[in-house]
């Protein structure tokens, strides 16, 4: 046994392997997030007779010559992949895609960091870890800045939190999962995305429009799933340091250890500190809160190729502290007084999750999985004179069976889900504590004629103590009438209970009075939200001057049957009430990506949003949501020499004018115009890869220094009734430059 461990460890270090003219690697499969080696896979150099097969653990060793660049890996039941091999000093860790997997992308000969799928039935965008290296991506919320499908906005001028939007709707309407377990929801809605460090993310899958019924009924506008790094495949040691001139310092370390041929474990540590007080606009308010975060995760991975069992155990602890407000605010003496306006937000979170999966060894198309997750999220906070405390204890369990009907063209997934959420919530002196639970069953059928047509139709039924008994249908269609041309259509329904305070926490950083219009519903006196989402898209791959490109056009419409309307139109008040009338979000996006010359990629995107709601004051567009957005991303990689190369990336965003909520009733000095000006945002980063072990990067965010001049209304007198920090349309802090390094073994 011991010898075997040593052998595997040796195999992990291509650097110290003796023979220099062989290439080592491992062929693996990913079954529902569980990665295991494939024994007996065929590995050969393209256009040569040199080939081999993998051993019983999935490892292979193959003769290497510098003229060999394309390595082909194939295995029965999986898509055959071709990998570019640039040097001997890399070890190949390759995951083969299940031939029948719908939600995945074919690996092209030249890998793209963000890719659309030609084969998937849903409109899904896959973001690889390489894409995440294009920007500092300190956490999950920042990792979408190079991606046009998701918009990153500022929520308020006090907490500096970035909020994401898709199809013109805020993140509560998205289902955000971590390895298919719902993660950012309920109490963590406002800040949850900043609680997943960027280096922990292996890849992100973004589904536009209605999602799959497998992960629940909550998704309305789309779904974002983040896969985290796995102990078996992640670097044995990884260190990342980051520092920025705004005073933000970050440290990330990963330690992974393969304990035996079945067990591996990893410890991931993230710490950040923001202690520098910045006030560039001179309004006496911090541009960004100061604070720190400690985030520790331990993962255990089990896989047994002989029996077909795989498993994961995850434990995570987080502590995050933020302090914002006036520069002279001292929490010890000024907390909840009118000496100075200040805010502290302290979050503690514990997560535990277990996943178990089984693939029938004799029947590769049949498998089942069980997952259960527990989390306890506790936020204690105050904003000026208002206190807000929320604690959420959650349990999520699901059991899933995958199999076929007749043959592999007809597949199904079925299972049951159980959720439990206990909230204790105190808004100033009002107790909004409650318990929600649900049990549901789902069945999803997918048909693929192995050619131009595929379909996924799912249905789920749920019994929820607050939402009642309801049915959620969702359908996706794909039709590919010609080569590289794909039409898709989807429609489906989503339903959720709005956590009005947790989701709109920025309201506390204003002196608006809260007006919750109780209409006898079960959640804060309000009814559950429900909406239909319809979408169509067209994707066409093309070859222009011998270079590959894609053009994508999509249109989505979300039609609310009920919504908890968040009404900011009275500057002294924020109101929450049930929708009476129509609320519609239309989104149109077109995107062109083109590999203009070797190693140079260009992405252009234009988006049009039309989001309108019937407010009590009449139909109006959603405030602070631009109609037009334009996006450009360019990336260039220099040819690899002695294992080292440069990477240059730049992203430019042009954001159209945005409507301010009505401020007419305020005194003139506290009014805002009807519309904000158009804003520009430019980010760029240069990365130098010195070797596969070491790289450094330097970059700038908001290089042109676009800022909003006067982001806080009544900043000079934060205790008068007009104080409001929520009217933010542009960055608060000017240009920010950062540098960092990544070291791996």
């Amino acid at each position, binding site marked *: 046994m011991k010898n075997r461990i040593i052998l595997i460890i040796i195999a992990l270090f291509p650097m110290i392997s003796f023979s220099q003219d062989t290439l080592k690697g491992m062929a693996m499969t990913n079954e529902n997030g569980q990665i295991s080696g494939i024994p007996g896979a*065929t590995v*050969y150099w393209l*256009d040569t007779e040199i*080939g081999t097969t993998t051993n019983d653990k999935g490892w292979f060793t193959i003769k290497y010559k510098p003229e060999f660049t394309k390595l*082909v890996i*194939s295995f*029965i*039941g999986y898509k*055959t992949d071709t990998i570019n091999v640039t040097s001997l000093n890399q070890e190949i860790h390759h995951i083969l895609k299940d*031939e029948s997997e719908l939600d995945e992308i074919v690996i092209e000969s030249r890998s793209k960091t963000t890719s659309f799928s030609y084969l998937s039935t849903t409109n899904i965008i896959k973001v690889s870890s390489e894409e995440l290296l294009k920007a500092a991506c300190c956490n999950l919320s920042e990792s979408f800045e190079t991606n046009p499908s998701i918009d990153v906005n500022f929520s308020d001028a006090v907490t500096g939190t970035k909020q994401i939007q898709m199809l013109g709707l805020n993140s509560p309407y998205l289902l955000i999962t971590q390895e298919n377990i719902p993660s950012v929801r309920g109490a963590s809605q406002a800040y949850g995305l900043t609680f997943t460090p960027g280096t922990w993310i292996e890849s992100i899958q973004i589904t536009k429009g209605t999602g799959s019924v497998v992960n629940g009924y909550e998704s309305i506008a789309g779904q974002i799933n983040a896969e985290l790094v796995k102990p078996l495949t992640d670097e044995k040691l990884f260190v990342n340091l980051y520092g920025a001139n705004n005073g933000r310092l970050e440290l990330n370390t990963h330690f992974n250890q393969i304990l035996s041929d079945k067990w591996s474990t990893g410890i991931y540590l993230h710490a950040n500190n923001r202690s520098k007080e910045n006030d560039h606009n001179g309004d006496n308010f911090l541009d960004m809160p100061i604070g720190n975060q400690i985030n520790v995760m331990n993962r255990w991975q089990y896989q047994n190729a002989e029996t077909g069992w795989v498993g994961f155990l995850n434990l995570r602890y987080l502590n995050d502290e933020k302090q914002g407000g006036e520069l002279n605010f001292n929490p010890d003496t000024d907390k909840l007084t009118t000496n100075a306006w200040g805010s502290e937000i302290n979050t503690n979170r514990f997560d535990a999750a277990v996943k178990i999966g089984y693939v*029938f060894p*004799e*029947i*590769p*198309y*049949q498998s*089942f999985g069980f997952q259960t997750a527990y989390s306890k999220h506790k936020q204690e906070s105050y904003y000026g004179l208002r206190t807000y405390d929320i604690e959420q204890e959650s349990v999520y369990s699901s*059991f899933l*069976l995958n199999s*076929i009907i*007749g*043959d*592999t*063209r007809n597949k199904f997934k079925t299972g*049951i889900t*159980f959720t439990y959420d206990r909230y204790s919530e105190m808004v100033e002196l009002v107790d909004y504590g409650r318990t929600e639970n649900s049990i549901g069953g789902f069945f999803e059928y997918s048909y693929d004629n*192995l*050619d131009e047509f595929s379909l996924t139709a799912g249905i789920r039924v749920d019994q929820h103590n607050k939402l009642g008994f309801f049915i959620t249908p969702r359908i996706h269609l794909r039709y590919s009438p010609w080569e590289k041309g794909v039409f898709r259509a989807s429609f489906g329904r989503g339903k959720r209970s709005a956590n009005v305070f947790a989701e709109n926490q920025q309201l506390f950083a204003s002196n608006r009075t809260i007006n919750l219009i109780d209409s006898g519903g079960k959640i804060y006196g309000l009814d559950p939200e429900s909406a239909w989402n319809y979408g169509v898209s067209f994707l066409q791959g093309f070859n222009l001057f011998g270079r590959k490109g894609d053009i994508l056009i999509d249109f989505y419409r979300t039609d609310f049957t009920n919504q908890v309307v968040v009404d900011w139109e009275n500057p002294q008040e924020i109101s929450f009430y049930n929708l009476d009338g129509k609320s519609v979000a239309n989104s149109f996006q077109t995107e062109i990506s083109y590999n203009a010359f070797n190693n140079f990629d260009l992405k252009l995107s234009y988006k049009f949003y039309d989001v309108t709601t019937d407010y009590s004051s009449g139909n109006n567009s959603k405030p602070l949501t631009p109609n037009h957005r334009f996006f450009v991303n360019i990336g260039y990689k220099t040819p690899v020499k002695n294992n080292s190369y440069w990477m240059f990336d730049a992203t430019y965003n042009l954001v159209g004018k945005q409507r301010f909520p009505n401020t007419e009733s305020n005194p003139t000095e506290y009014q805002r115009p009807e519309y904000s000006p158009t804003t520009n945002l430019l980010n760029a980063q240069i990365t130098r890869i010195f070797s596969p072990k070491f790289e450094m990067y330097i970059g700038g965010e908001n290089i042109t220094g676009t800022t909003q001049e006067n982001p806080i209304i009544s900043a000079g007198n934060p205790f008068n009734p007009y104080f409001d920090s929520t009217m933010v349309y542009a960055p608060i802090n000017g240009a920010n430059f950062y540098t960092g390094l990544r070291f791996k073994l």
Partner: protein
Amino acid sequence: MKKLFLFLGIVLITLSATAQNKNAKVSFEVDGICGMCKKRIEKAALNTKGVKYASWDVKTHMLSLIIDERKTAVKTVQENVAAVGHSTKEVATTEEAYNNLDPCCKYKDEEIVKDHEK
């Protein structure tokens, strides 16, 4: 809840226990060259009632199947594959079916086979 899992567990165990001849694994060589052949071969195989899973390897020319032996026989699959133009050792394709193949799939033509090797 617990009972439900127990029930599902029992269902799965019985499924796999009776799965012996219902899920027979077989593989044999089928002539062909390219990705288009792969699609055609697998489709023909899956179109045979009783074939649950089919995968043809472009490199080794091996067709791997999982079939329900009570519903079909290997011979039937081979006949169906031959009917769309792909020969096996046991069942040769007809001239007509072979001629219907796309030009790039003419595996009997050495020049075309060579082209694919480039």
